[in-house]
């Protein structure tokens, strides 16, 4: 190793300080909002005069918030399902296929990642307006699928490339049809890729707000849209509570993903 952390002397402390400050900088807004959600002040005073759970009570007893959360969850689940399914088929084509323009196609699949989301949102909005998909679950799912697929394809092409096709060939020679060999042998071998694809697809949809704002209707809102809409009407700590719940689900899934990755390496 070129740079040995322990032999850096005084620089070791400088590095450590910078790292801690960076982490604090990144985490500050999250901690701030979490603290506010437990504060008693109606006006989001910081630091809070005293602590309370009443905003969570208000949140969980308001059917409109619950419905938004359920909508978010439902859409994220459907997106996850299709994202993994389509991502899997596409990845087999991209990794195993022998055709012209394979690498171009692969790059093309990644464009939603770099394209400004708002451009995509406007385009989809205009298009869905014509075919009547705005404000529908289908519209939501398609919009989120477009931004979730690159993550899914990235995870699955990576897993498939790391998988030795000879193992699948061996299963076929054992008498399993090519489809059966893929289902019973290849899929279990790339389960970590399937899992990453699922979690990242879910999260992409779960906390996506730009496309959701364009797709939403007064009767169909996801949690981020509801937070955004409520924020524009009045500033209540219920928003902080909702945000905190949103973050908790995200962090939980990230932790599970990390644990699975670690479990696979061990």
């Amino acid at each position: 190793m070129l740079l040995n952390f322990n032999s850096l002397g005084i620089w070791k402390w400088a590095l450590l300080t910078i790292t801690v400050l960076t982490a604090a900088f990144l985490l500050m807004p999250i901690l701030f909002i979490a603290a506010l959600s437990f504060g008693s002040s109606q006006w989001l005073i910081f630091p809070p005069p005293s602590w309370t759970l009443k905003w969570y009570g208000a949140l969980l007893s308001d059917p409109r918030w619950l419905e938004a959360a359920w909508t978010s969850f439902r859409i994220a689940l459907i997106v996850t399902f299709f994202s993994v399914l389509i991502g899997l088929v596409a990845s087999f084509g991209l990794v195993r296929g022998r055709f012209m323009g394979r690498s171009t196609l692969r790059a093309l699949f990644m464009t939603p990642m770099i394209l400004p989301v708002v451009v995509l949102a406007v385009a989809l909005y205009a298009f869905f307006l014509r075919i009547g998909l705005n404000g529908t679950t289908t519209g939501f799912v398609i919009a989120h699928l477009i931004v979730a697929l690159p993550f899914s394809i990235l995870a699955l092409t990576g897993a498939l490339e790391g998988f030795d096709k000879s193992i699948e060939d061996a299963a076929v020679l054992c008498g399993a049809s090519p489809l059966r060999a893929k289902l019973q042998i290849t899929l279990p071998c790339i389960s970590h890729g399937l899992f990453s694809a699922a979690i990242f697809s879910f999260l992409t949809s779960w906390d996506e707000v730009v496309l959701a704002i364009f797709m939403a209707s007064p009767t169909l809102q996801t949690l981020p849209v509801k937070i955004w809409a409520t924020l524009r009407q009045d500033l209540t700590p219920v928003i902080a509570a909702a945000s905190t719940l949103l973050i908790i689900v995200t962090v939980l899934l990230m932790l599970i993903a990390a644990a699975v990755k670690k479990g696979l390496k061990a």
Partner: protein
Amino acid sequence: MTPFLQITGIAKQYGPVMAVKDVNLTVDHGEFMTFLGPSGSGKSTTLYILAGFEQPTRGDILLNGKTILDTPSHKRNIGMVFQRYTLFPHLSVGENIAFPLKVRGWSKAAITERVRQMLSLVRLEGFEDRKPVAMSGGQQQRVALARALAYDPPVLLMDEPLSALDKKLREEIQHEIRRIHQQTEVTILYVTHDQEEALRLSDRIAVFSKGVIDQIGTGQQLYNDPSTRFVAEFIGDSNFIDTDVVSVNGRFARLALANGAVIDGVPTHGTDFRQGRASLLLRPERIDLRLGKSEGVLPGAVREITFLGNHVQVSVDTQLAAPVDVRLPFGHAALGGLAPGLDVSLDFKIAETHAFQLEDRVPAS
């Protein structure tokens, strides 16, 4: 009688590359046939065509007289052990061996019994519940062998199954493979580029070179009577000496060496040597060495002496272009007084030499 397995005129083209040009081969039932050849000579491609992973550009493969080319891989009922480890990592050893049987719809009891039999065949009793990751490379390949043989395939393909193992383990498993072959009487097509492995295992060897088979025969036939310079170079050690062809008489030639000596009756395999030059093969271990200048065919001087365990390699400068290597068994009479610079003379039996076309060059391997 129809031959058991017949490969006729197989060719395979990948874009501009002819991986296999024209392979013809007949294999008997129960035979151990090895494909031996340098990297890129088309051994694996031929095997993959047999397995059905590749379709040949030309040619046919007949098993018991019937083509297998229109049968998809999973219905060919062929066994295969791969170069890389291909056990299913999420299944235990027992489940791996059971997989082809489950696919074939065997009953639970029959599968349990068969798995037990196969584990005992490869001497891995008690490993049933192990996961592949918890096993050594040699053990994994033995399980792979058990899995491939579990359903009694008529043909077993093996593509360099031992190349990832170290030498000692390799020899151990070679013995196992030989024993299992004798026990099961399965027909084996085995790919390797290790001549020692080929000689140790095979009934017959097919020597591959640039997409064709140069010669098929037992190890002894290939060594004693190579049909091309390539085969001679690939099996055993060799000296090649450029000579002028004086005359050709049937399957024998009269050759003039660069030092003026003329030898008659050199076996030629019917080559006509149109360009008037030939390459003479002398096996280092078939050359006799005597001390002192004499009227022998090849007088020379010792250049270098290398001790190699059970034999000694002596490099001799003659009046020919390159030094000639001689291999003397340990304890040979001439070894006592041998030292670099001494005059010696070399002799050999003409019947044990061969003359090949000059341009029959060997590709770097």
